């Protein structure tokens, strides 16, 4: 994904170390990372680069600085919202909420695809829930110290 990053992974690492922290936080590069871990595997110094980028992502979300047009942080928030409320992810509902919050036109664009999935039984329109969401919420809330992102 380096081609899509204005700062390649080793530059992000250098920014993080060298004190130009803000530049790394507001970059588009950190959001381009798909967390494929190839960098971590190949690194000759065994630097956990992917996890370092996760740290930058978390910091960016807490600080509320990320490029406005980036869908990803909103996706992360929505995901967390669903899991916190119901313990599971509902792909259909999450996608719909995401589009409504960011790019409503995408609903039209990908609507047909979504329908195809529903018709083939590969997209459930149910709200997925676990039986004891309060149990899960208690666990998550007990760790709520400086978690960023959840609405």
């Amino acid at each position: 994904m380096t081609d899509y990053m204005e700062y390649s992974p080793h530059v992000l690492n250098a920014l993080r170390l060298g004190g130009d922290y803000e530049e790394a936080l507001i970059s588009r590069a950190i959001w381009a990372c798909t967390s494929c871990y190839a960098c971590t595997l190949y690194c000759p110094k065994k630097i956990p680069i992917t996890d370092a980028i996760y740290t930058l992502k978390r910091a960016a979300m807490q600080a509320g600085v990320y490029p406005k047009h980036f869908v990803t942080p909103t996706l992360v928030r929505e995901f967390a919202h669903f899991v916190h409320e119901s313990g599971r992810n509902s792909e259909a509902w999450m996608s719909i909420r995401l589009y409504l919050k960011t790019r409503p036109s995408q609903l039209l664009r990908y609507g047909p695809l979504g329908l195809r999935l529903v018709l083939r039984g590969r997209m459930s329109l149910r709200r997925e829930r676990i039986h004891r969401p309060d149990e899960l919420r208690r666990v998550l809330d007990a760790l709520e110290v400086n978690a960023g992102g959840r609405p």
Partner: protein
Amino acid sequence: MSYAYFPGCGSTGTGRPYEESLVAVFQALGSGLDAIDDWNCCGATAYPTIDPAQATALCARNFALAERAHPEAKQLDVVAPCAGCYRALLKAEKAMAEGGVLAERVSNALGTAGLSYDGRAQPRHPLDVLVNDIGLEAIAAATVRPLQGLRVACYYGCLLVRPYAPFDDPYEPTSMERLFRAMGAEPIDWPLRTRCCGGSCYCGGPIVGALPEATLDLSHTLLEDAKKRGADVVVTTCPLCQFNLEGFQSQMARTFGARLDVTVGFFSQLLGLALGIEDRKLGIQRMFRWKLPEQSPKDHLTKESKEKVVVDA
């Protein structure tokens, strides 16, 4: 032999055929998959972006529930088919095993809900279980419709082999190739088989992704290369990868020119076919596209053809 089973959120959605085919395959091979009662989402790649402790806790709750259901088991394998779930569970297991501040906080948090994780539950991928527990010989023996030189492109993707590679080589994995060779197929040599397809929550594919052009490019490169190497079908080990590679081929055609028309399935579906399980049980009707080269009808395995099936130890 029954395994504790973690379905993952994809199992009711895009990954439904994966679950269906996996359950059918395990059954045919004499093993069961028992879903963990009241399992919750593993957090995928989204929760690590929120808080590592909460991400660990999500997985730890599943382990705790599995352990509670099997108090007597000294070691409990939890089979997680989705590579994303698999990695998340592995990471949580390692974080808890390491001890330290995070492990302690998570343990305490679990405790507030009356849960505890002793470290007995261990995540395992079904590919690992099939190749290393059930074994290639048993699978070859159970093969009823050998794949007759079908050229299979085995796609591992990222999270199955990185950053943890507990059961295969992270640079040059061979588990799937050995599996399919045992069923008579001819897996292609594919250097790109561990290259990212962009399907994770990050790129989330063109549907929920922030960089749709990037994802499309990554997936297109993979499919084009597989096709160039003569693959008849691409098989995957993750619902996100599978959907990413299968679902946008028309968009790829519009952006890059040529139509690819590549059949992309789950490895368990192809395995199920070889084991003689019928299409419907493997969720094949749910795929957008399923076209395999003509195979000569061979309902019963003769002695000679059984010998032709090569088991690559």
